[in-house]
């Protein structure tokens, strides 16, 4: 098997394992990454929401926020893990497509 084929397979395995990145922080009761809090969390931490942060924080509504489907915030860990894998597959597919196109445009032909 060609090394690149093996790497695609490894990528598939890593995608299937990705919910660990969701489950472990929940299990160990870890909160948000430092500097990536929601407005509610900031309100609790410092007693107010900085005005610019409140305004700019609303500038973009991602279609799959936090690697989940919209409206799934209250679902259990099994559902969220499924959404996490779907997000990983979608993200990888898009990234491979875009990078491939850029690479094809830039790379020297026939080498």
């Amino acid at each position: 098997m060609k090394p690149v084929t093996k790497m695609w397979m490894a990528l598939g395995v890593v995608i299937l394992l990705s919910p660990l990145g969701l489950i472990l922080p929940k299990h160990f009761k870890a909160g948000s990454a430092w500097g990536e809090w929601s407005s509610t969390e900031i309100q609790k931490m410092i007693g107010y929401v900085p005005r610019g942060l409140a305004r700019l924080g609303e500038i973009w509504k991602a279609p799959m926020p936090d690697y989940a489907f919209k409206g799934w915030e209250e679902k259990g860990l099994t559902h969220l893990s499924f959404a996490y894998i779907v997000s990983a597959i979608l993200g990888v597919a898009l990234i491979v497509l875009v990078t491939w196109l850029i690479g094809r445009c830039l790379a020297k032909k026939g080498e």
Partner: protein
Amino acid sequence: MHIPDGYLGPATSGVFYAVMIPLWMAAARIVKKTLKARQVPLLAIGAAFSFVIMMFNVPIPGGSTGHAVGGVLVAILLGPWAAMIAITVALVIQALLFGDGGITAIGANCFNMAVVIPFVGYYVFTLISGGAPANSRRRVVAAFIAGYAGINAAALMAGVEFGLQPHLCHTASGQALYCPYGLRIAVPIMVGEHLLIFGWIEAVVTALVVKYLYQHAPELFGQEGQK
């Protein structure tokens, strides 16, 4: 390390977009000269790996989370300029599709993770491994140290960017407008948690994959990885 929208003021966000545009253009020019057609799949896999690695949030029990980026690995395989393109693509998709990192912060996030990580990592790797034969222990150790150095340098940059905000932008009464924590809090925390925990994950991932690839697919390292 993905700075969300609202944590950086418009001036900081603008500066980093202004810094990134010429860097992206330079990357396109340089990669055009060096990237071979057969390396294109590797570039795509590198970008995809980096994206998925960043989904593995590692908890500090009862505290915050963090993750590796895989940027040093891509830089060792394809060079820092190609790595910059690959990681930029991953970061832009994360921001647009998943709201991981803000769209106003794409410039800053790309500077930290798509420039600082691959360049620091790449030069630490070449400095330590220079002249060592492929598949030697020194190259694996070099990859380990390069991974650790790269992500910690990026954490320092992110800490400075966060920490400058309350000094730059506040109301007359002293309330912060954007990130509320200053340099004395943001820098020690960002750097500290990466020095103590997340940096080791980047180091181990980089070293293990580099070791495996030198043993099983040394041809994947272009002249970049054999210098």
